[in-house]
């Protein structure tokens, strides 16, 4: 039983005034805070510097804990894996057999593609990454999906650069600090990625759901052409993400599109690569050195 509070100030004027002042400060401050929140939703860049500066403080500790215990891979994933283990196993065996067949066909196509490209003398654009790092930690208590990347401006990272892992797209850099930067993950509600279906190039938009899945919607609303198992890759439309980075696999059809699961799980990736944004000047800058040495790409 907690001792009852005696906030009533009694006859003392001084106590009465100070209690009143405390309430005035609290209510004014709360309203100002609400206004600030609305402002920072409208203009997220304004306060980003403040936030990334405070995360510079905790980053050394995050680096330390990561090196001691390694990355804790998704707790929620482990739980759901136990629930659906049997049916998942059956489904995975079927998928594996299918994937093996397709792999043989793909490798033949790849060889043919290489030969045709060398005949045409096409130049491959430079896909090399700007920097390599790892994801330190993330905002695991709030509804935003923002991760902390171990690289900052010291390694040439700046806002708007795409980030990918070995399996697929991770997200994009939101703010870059001196030695760490914030990455907006693919699954954040505000992250929209232009994608296309790998099989036939059907354009679509992938939006995060905030819980690890993605909503995929076609630009053409009349039909719902998605099937479970469809692979989505970035289309390069919009000029941020370079084309042909694997993004997600369709899990289930929905009323207005499909539910997809990202191919790269940020909880499990070891290293991530920061890429150059896919903007016209970057593409030209990559193409120029290739032109100056003709025939370098040909075998």
């Amino acid at each position, binding site marked *: 039983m907690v001792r009852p*509070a005696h906030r009533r100030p009694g006859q003392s004027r001084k106590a009465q005034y100070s209690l009143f002042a*405390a309430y005035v*400060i609290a209510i004014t401050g709360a309203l100002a805070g609400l206004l*600030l929140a609305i402002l920072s939703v409208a203009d997220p860049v304004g306060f980003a510097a403040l936030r990334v500066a405070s995360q510079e403080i*905790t980053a050394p500790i995050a680096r330390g804990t990561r090196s001691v215990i390694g990355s*804790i891979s998704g707790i929620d994933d482990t739980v759901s894996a136990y629930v659906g283990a049997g049916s998942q196993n059956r489904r995975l065996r079927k998928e594996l057999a299918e994937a093996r067949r397709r792999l043989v066909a793909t490798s033949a196509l790849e060889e043919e593609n290489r030969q045709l490209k060398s005949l045409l003398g096409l130049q491959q654009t430079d896909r090399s990454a700007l920097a390599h790092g790892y994801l330190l930690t993330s905002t695991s*208590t709030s509804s935003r999906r923002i991760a902390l990347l171990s690289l900052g401006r010291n390694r040439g990272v700046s806002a708007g650069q795409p980030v990918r892992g070995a399996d697929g797209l991770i997200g994009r850099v939101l703010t870059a600090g001196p030695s760490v930067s914030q990455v907006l993950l693919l699954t954040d509600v505000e992250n929209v990625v232009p994608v296309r279906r790998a099989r036939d190039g059907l354009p679509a938009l992938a939006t995060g759901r905030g*819980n690890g899945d993605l909503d995929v919607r076609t630009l053409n609303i009349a039909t719902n052409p998605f099937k479970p198992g469809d692979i989505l890759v970035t289309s390069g439309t919009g000029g941020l993400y370079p084309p042909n980075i694997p993004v997600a696999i369709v899990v289930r059809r929905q009323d207005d599109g499909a539910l997809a699961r990202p191919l790269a799980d*940020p*909880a499990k990736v070891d290293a991530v690569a920061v890429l150059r944004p896919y903007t016209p000047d970057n593409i030209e800058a990559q193409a120029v050195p290739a032109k100056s040495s003709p025939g370098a790409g040909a075998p």
Partner: protein
Amino acid sequence: MNRHGQRIGEPASRWRMQIVPIATVMIASALPLMLPLVASSPVLPPLGLLFFLSWQLLRTEMWPVWIGLPLGLWDDLFSGAPIGTAIALWTAASIAIAYLSQRIYWRGFLHDWAIGALLVAAVQALAVLITFPHAPAGHMLGLVLPQIIISVLLMPLFLRLTGKFDNFRLKRR
């Protein structure tokens, strides 16, 4: 401390009495960003908020009602929510606790748990609605529902932990 130096049984220093509650809330707010956990959904309970509510339920008069302004700002810097969300919502929560502690004169454990649960649910639900004003509200509430349930179930543990910290805070020499 008096002019003879420290005596056995003297009350704890003022410095320790004030710094311990604030330090626990601030460390709990920043702790999720020190763990190597890259979550794909809001899995961890809002540790800072749980300590903040527990301290106020345990020691209603310890802090002025505006304490949510600085502590909320600190939490906003780390939580990922837009800056200002916790400033507004935490202060509203402390005003609610101050009001309820006058209405319910003798509060028991179940009262504390109920008030804490209600406020955690309200703060987390409103925070997600402020963060994503254009997204469908039902889906957004579904996103934080598991986190709210975990936090409500953990509330007694945090009350107990806060009690332990309070014993340390007031420990006589």
